[in-house]
């Protein structure tokens, strides 16, 4: 199969959906001629014109607000939010307005909009351009949250997001924009709420999201060398969360490590670990371990930044200790 970059995959997804449905339009800062600073949307304005590929002023709350209103009235906006860190600017429009409109109207109004943004540190972009803030939106009912972990996933999940009748926030890993993966020429969609088992295993389940899926796969490789068989699961969407697939796996392996790039505390790993600990309680041979970004603002200095994100070594070591039955936190 041909291989394309994540960035190309996203571009294709947008183009295909805009061709299919002329109510879909794209808006954001420098999405037209410039194709975004990440060069993701290049070529779209040439095909679809400036009325459907709209450069906005630097008004994040404003254009997300416009998207909510447009979505309520017959079009399907796809909004480009240049950095995930700017989510903080648009939370009111996203969480007080978009997320609640369908419910507050008793089901009469719909908000079929997509907010595309990104996550991921280690790009030396410091504390305001490196955050992974998906846990925040996952906490708000009414939003769906997708976390693609490869070019293939990015295309399939984005196409599903655009067709979804609810507000969807999709986070791409900005470190992965140039990473290639096999992506079919034919059209495909990836369902929401269906986790992907990337690797089957017997001894421990590694649950990784977005950027951390590769970390888990590498950790699984390291574990294999030690004779430990790790299953790797990518939830794909954290809202809805495919609890069943995760629980089935943990009931089989009896051990789990959850890895996500959001801050560790009050983040995504807590929810997944808490659900496993509760619902697979009688199957667990060891505590569920969690890796998130360190609970510090992301530092600029490479010497510090690299310490803040989980590595395959750390994940493998923790998983190996679980499997060796080493007592964690025993009083």
């Amino acid at each position, binding site marked *: 199969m041909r291989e394309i970059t994540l960035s190309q995959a996203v571009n294709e997804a947008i183009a295909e959906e805009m061709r299919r449905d002329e109510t879909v339009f794209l808006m954001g800062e420098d999405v037209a001629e410039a194709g975004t600073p990440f060069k993701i949307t290049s070529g779209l304005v040439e095909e679809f014109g400036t009325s459907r590929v709209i450069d906005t002023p630097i008004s994040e709350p404003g254009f997300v*607000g416009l998207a909510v209103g447009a*979505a309520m*009235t017959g079009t399907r906006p796809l909004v480009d939010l240049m950095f995930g860190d700017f989510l903080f600017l648009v939370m009111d429009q996203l969480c007080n*307005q978009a997320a609640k409109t*369908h419910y507050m109207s008793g089901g009469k109004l719909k908000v079929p909009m997509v907010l595309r943004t990104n996550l991921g540190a280690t790009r030396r972009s410091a504390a305001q351009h490196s955050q992974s803030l998906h846990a925040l939106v996952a906490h708000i009912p*009414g939003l769906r949250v997708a976390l693609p972990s490869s070019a293939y996933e990015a295309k399939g999940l984005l196409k599903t997001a655009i067709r*979804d009748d*609810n507000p969807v926030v999709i986070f791409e890993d900005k470190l992965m924009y140039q990473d290639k993966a096999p992506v079919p020429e034919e059209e495909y969609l990836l369902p929401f709420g269906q986790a992907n088992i990337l690797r089957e295993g017997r001894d421990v389940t590694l649950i990784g999201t977005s950027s951390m899926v590769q970390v888990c796969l590498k950790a699984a490789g390291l574990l294999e060398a030690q004779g430990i068989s790790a299953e790797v699961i990518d939830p794909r969407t954290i809202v809805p969360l495919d609890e069943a697939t995760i629980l089935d796996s943990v009931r089989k392996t009896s051990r789990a490590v959850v890895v996500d790039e959001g801050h560790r505390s009050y983040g995504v790993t807590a929810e997944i670990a808490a659900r496993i600990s509760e619902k697979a309680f009688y199957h667990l041979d060891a505590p569920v371990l969690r890796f998130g970004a360190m609970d510090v603002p992301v530092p600029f200095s490479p010497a510090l930044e690299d310490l803040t994100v989980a590595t395959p070594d750390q994940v493998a070591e923790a998983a190996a200790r679980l499997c060796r039955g080493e007592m964690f936190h025993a009083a």
Partner: protein
Amino acid sequence: MAKAKTNTDDYLRMYRQMVRIRAFEDQANQLYLSAKMPGLTHMYSGQEAVAVGICEALTPQDHITSTHRGHGHCVAKGAEFKPMFCELLGKAEGYCRGKGGSMHIADQSNGNLGANAIVGGSMGIATGAALSHKMLGDGQVTVCFFGDGATAQGLWYEVMNMAALWKLPVIYACENNGYSEYTRTEEIAAGSITARAEAFGIESFSIDGQDVLAVNRLAQDLVARCRKGEGPFFIELKTYRYHGHHVGDINRDYYRSKEEEAEWKKSRDPITGFGTWLQSEGIVSSDDLVAINDEVRADAEAAVKYALDSAYPDGSEVDMHVYSDTEHALA
């Protein structure tokens, strides 16, 4: 230029609509005072000429967005009493099945995209609706209602900029009732409100919001110009709220005098004023007006009774309408 409404039917409909709003609010206030209404609500009484003058210039397909003080807009845009009172009481037959209440009442069937409990929160929505309509080319116009206090929200400036750049068919209608909560407008608004809109190149107007004919004339004109692609526009409407900020705001001497309130009611009431004019022009008799009043009040009372007797939503509805394609989100 669009033709201002000049025939007897139009006049009488405007008069009746203003009376309907006043009657609705009087009933809502009574419901609160007799502890039959859950929560709080904000009365529109005194501002009727704004909602009616503007909404009478719109078709049912044109959109409006409304505010926490939104009953007037809802009635003026064509809503019926029964589902409105049901909504205020949290009943299943409410416009939003009781999920929205006073602060989120919406009436999709008549183009009302909803009240909003975030001050200024609907400015993006209205502008986005205008963007949708421009894209869809359906000639529809959107009116964004908000108060003087809402001009302090930065969102307004962001969306005005985009509306002006993209010539969107939206009219920003600022109901300047002199107060935001318990504070006079002068204390929280520097400079000039119309100048703020003009600075974005938006043609702006400041008019008497108690004169329904003047409001309607201007609205007809601007709506027609919006349909021709000459929008956006801004209108400041000078008006007054008769009640407290909300129904519970009873002792308000510390921020405005009883004399001021009495003076507005006596000399500038929009309904009395229009009624007097209708009589002086020989269009109706005083008996005609009394008959309209009686009829509307009887309607309102009957609707309240209906709403009081009607059923609450079933508990199973609690997790319905969280997502548009999922019947029960938590099932």
